[in-house]
């Protein structure tokens, strides 16, 4: 898949994903958005096809603006954007028919029970009343609000409101689920539940997900592709799945009794090494296997306390993209 062909972007990558959907989920061609004299999004160009796409970036990077533009809330001032093949300027209604959106901020109707709220939202998406009611119950079961579904939304805790927002986003059977900071304000266990739920929805393979967050763990735990924005520009594109596979030859050792001789022996095999205290990071050369490392360690009486395959974490990727 060709991605991020972006003049001015900090970094770009070209990668291939097998069994990619025929129509890109998001396709941007020089997209710019301006509020007054402020350029919020600047000349974004990319094509994203993953089943779960993460939008990352520091606060104010333009993530939410990009999502709102894709939903047709903000008009682009330049370039074009397509969602599931539909133009955001001309085919907003078609896009909205296929989308389930969970906004970042509080969004509910206080004097309404969760089931009525989700039913109404499903009806507004076009479901007949009876089907909407059934789907509302099912969506609330699905997100884990079954016991509280007849309670008024105004009485819900923050975590429950987040789940209710997720329920209204999936009740009408969207093809694309856009989640804007879904774990905002959640305690660790509620966050875990939310992430698990997003993964379950992703793994159902019935819809695609765009997850917007400034929390790296959320994106790392759920997404296959990541687009990092910084100051309204694309700072980096990364296909996490591909990187996970590619970094299988990146090893991190924690040793006892290692000296320069051990490192030298490994380097003679053609591996690149970096030593910090008792830790040794290396990239295995072609033809070199882990058993060779164990053999060299045994020959030199070096004990290997820990051996991990270590890939770049999303944090590493993010920090690189931010130029830090």
């Amino acid at each position, binding site marked *: 898949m060709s991605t991020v062909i972006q003049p001015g972007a900090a970094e770009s990558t070209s990668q291939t994903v097998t069994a990619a959907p025929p129509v890109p989920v998001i396709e941007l061609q020089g997209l710019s958005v301006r509020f007054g004299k402020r350029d919020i999004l600047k000349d974004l160009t990319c094509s994203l096809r993953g089943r779960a796409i993460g939008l990352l970036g520091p606060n104010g990077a333009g993530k939410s603006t990009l999502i709102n533009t894709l939903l047709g809330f*903000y008009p682009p001032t330049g370039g074009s954007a397509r969602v599931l093949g539909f133009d955001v300027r001309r085919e907003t*209604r078609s896009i909205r028919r296929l989308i389930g959106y969970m906004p970042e901020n509080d969004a509910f109707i206080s004097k309404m029970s969760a089931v009525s709220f989700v039913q109404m*939202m499903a009806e*507004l998406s076009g*479901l007949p009343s009876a089907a909407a009611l059934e789907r509302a119950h099912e*969506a609330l*079961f699905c997100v884990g609000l079954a016991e509280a579904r007849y309670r008024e939304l105004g009485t819900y805790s923050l975590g429950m409101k987040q789940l209710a927002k997720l329920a209204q986003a*999936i009740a009408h059977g969207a093809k694309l689920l856009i989640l804007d900071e879904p774990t905002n304000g959640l305690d660790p266990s509620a966050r875990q539940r939310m992430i698990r739920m997003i993964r379950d929805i992703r793994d159902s393979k019935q819809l695609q997900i765009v997850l917007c967050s400034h929390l790296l763990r959320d994106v790392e735990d759920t997404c296959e592709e990541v687009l990092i924005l910084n100051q309204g520009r694309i700072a980096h594109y990364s296909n996490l799945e591909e990187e996970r596979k590619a970094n299988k030859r990146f090893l991190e050792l924690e040793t006892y009794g290692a000296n320069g001789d051990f490192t030298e022996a490994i380097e003679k095999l053609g591996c690149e090494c970096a030593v910090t205290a008792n830790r040794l990071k290396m990239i295995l050369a072609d033809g070199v296997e882990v058993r060779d490392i164990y053999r060299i360690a045994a020959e030199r009486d070096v004990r290997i306390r820990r051996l991990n395959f270590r890939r770049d974490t999303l944090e590493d990727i993010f920090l690189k993209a931010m130029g830090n």
Partner: protein
Amino acid sequence: MAVYRRTYTSYVGPLTPSWSRSLVLFRYSRRKLFRSKFQTGLFVLCFFFPLGCLLTIYLAHNLSFLERFGGVSASFISIDNKFFLTFLGVQGVLAFVLTAFAGPGLISPDLANGALPLYFCRPFSRAEYVLGKASVLAILLSQITWIPGLVLFAVQASLAGTAWTWDHFWIAGSLVLSSFIWIAVLSLLAMALSAWVRWRIVAGALLLAVLFFGAGFGQAINAVMHTQSGRFFDIGYLMTIVWTSLFRVENEGPITSGQAWIALLIYCAICLALLVRKVRAYEVIK
């Protein structure tokens, strides 16, 4: 997505036509409105005066019944344009009171709780949203203004005969048109104010203030500046001028019906502009 399985499945059933989405909003908003006993009570109260008018029309056509009660003459009860104007005047006040309580609850909770992005991320436009919400007020107010008005007219027509009906048929049109204007002004005003302040109680108070303090403010301007232009701030007065012209009742006020029409249209345009500005998924801060 069966309940027992608790896993996500997509929806493959039929969809409703696009034009029917406003009706969804209307249905839910109306149901919510009548969940309040106070609102329901107020709505029921609005039918007492039409019932009184109905009785009056009956008595006016049954002189013998009246004379049985101490020789009361029916001549003072004249069922004409002024009778229907009075009916609409009273019902108009009740419509205003009903709007002050029911109107702000339609939009302000959505704005206060940030629900608008949830509406507009669906195949549902801002115009449809306003239409859906306004239709709640429009139908509610219709039920207490022109619909009972037409019922009274029909009863009077059936009792007075064909000649009276043909001579006074224009009254039915005036009833409907006058009610439509008042409903439009009240609905737009209520929705614009509740969209602006986002707090239901304040929006209700503001609506009362616009009508009552507007009149007071206008009087103050008249007194200070020795003019009659302050009357343009009195929406109730402007409405009365329009109604009197529609009901062919003489108006000797300082403002002509044409000026009153223009002033009301300007008020409606301002309300629409406020709604266009405020009813959107996210406000753009430039």
